[in-house]
């Protein structure tokens, strides 16, 4: 999975003896990375097949071997970005393994914010520019965000007072976090996302632990 920072690797020119399959995979990855980087620089409207191809050092005709349109490339790029984030968050949860639920949630949130802050183009496509690219992408965004709800809910204790937190509330929490982060990314504050970790953690824990309980955990960390 490529990292979405500004440098890209290129295949050597001319005959290189690499299999067509390798070249194709490499090209596809480079196009996806190029889209994400270009999007971050000029926004959705101005991200063209020409710019993407130029950035990826892939000809236009080769672009169209991989994708029917800019939007199809966009969808693939979006999926790749979601997978990257999911992998990092799952790894953080697994790494926190034997720790209790608040510990796992904290690990996931810190890993998420650190990743986004370190790779602004990734944050941009997922949470800001990606939202303006049309309904298909918006649908992907919605289902990507929703896919994190079971991660939040798993092992969550019932709130003080007995009644289990309704599933809708965990959806509201995940949706609310996505919305908050998206606003900050759109405002150009991606690099300082990690500073939001205490707020985000309190917001995520409160429906299950109560606000008092959530704050105790956040201060202890």
């Amino acid at each position, binding site marked *: 999975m490529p990292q979405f920072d500004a440098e890209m690797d290129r295949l050597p020119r001319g005959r290189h003896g690499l299999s067509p399959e390798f070249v194709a995979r490499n090209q596809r990855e480079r196009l996806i990375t190029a889209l994400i980087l270009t999007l971050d620089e000029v926004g959705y*409207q101005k991200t063209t097949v020409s710019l993407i191809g130029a950035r990826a050092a892939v000809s236009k005709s080769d672009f169209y071997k991989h994708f029917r349109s800019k939007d199809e490339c966009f969808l693939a790029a979006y999926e790749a970005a979601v997978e990257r984030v999911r992998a990092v968050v799952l790894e953080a949860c697994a790494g926190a393994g034997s720790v209790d639920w608040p510990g796992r949630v904290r690990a996931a949130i810190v890993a998420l914010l650190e990743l986004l802050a370190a790779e602004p183009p990734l944050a941009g496509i997922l949470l800001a520019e990606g*939202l*303006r690219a049309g309904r298909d992408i918006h649908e992907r965004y919605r289902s990507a965000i929703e896919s994190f709800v079971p991660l939040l809910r798993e092992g969550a204790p019932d709130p003080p007072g007995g009644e289990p937190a309704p599933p*809708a509330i965990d959806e509201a929490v995940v949706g*609310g976090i996505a*919305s908050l982060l998206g606003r900050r990314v759109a405002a150009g504050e991606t690099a300082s996302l990690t500073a939001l970790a205490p707020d985000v953690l309190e917001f995520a824990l*409160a429906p299950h632990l109560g*606000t*008092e309980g959530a704050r105790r955990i*956040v201060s202890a960390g």
Partner: protein
Amino acid sequence: MSAARPQLSQDFVAAHKRRRMIDAMSELCAERGYEAAKIADVVRHAHVARKTLYDNFTGKEDLFLAAFDTALADAEVEIAAACAGLPPTAWEARTEAALRALLGFIAAHPAAARLALVEAPTAGPAAAARYDAAIDGFIARLRDAAPTAPGRPTTLEEALVGGTVWIMHRQVRRGDIAKAPALLPELTEFIVSPYRSVGKR
């Protein structure tokens, strides 16, 4: 010989036609999405001449924005009416009343709700900006209305409004419009409970 028709004021007729065009836009967007909604279909649904549409609006986007503004304004009327009888200090009751009004509006006007919540973010940059501004407005209102206390995360209102809008979007998107009012207890609790705490962080 037919009876003479009562003369409606020109303003009334014009406003009525404008309303029909806005409603037609909402219905069509709800059915097929903003991209697929065509001016030809709007004028047919609204029973107006094409010229009438272009006398009132510069084009599809302009009409969409007007429909968005109208949906928001209509919802505001419901919210204001619901809060009218309540003391300004009764924050939890006012929040519940406002949410009840909003959820009731969604149930009663699903096309308008869909236009504002589902279509607007992806109906072009102007619509997205309008949507963002509306969200900003709700965040500011929540911040003003909610009880102040030290230790509150500064991001709380952004997250609460974002989460509430997320749930409403989900409800509208799924077409579970009639069940929207059933969300009231959960959403009210979601919004008011963070403000009940007494401890500092």
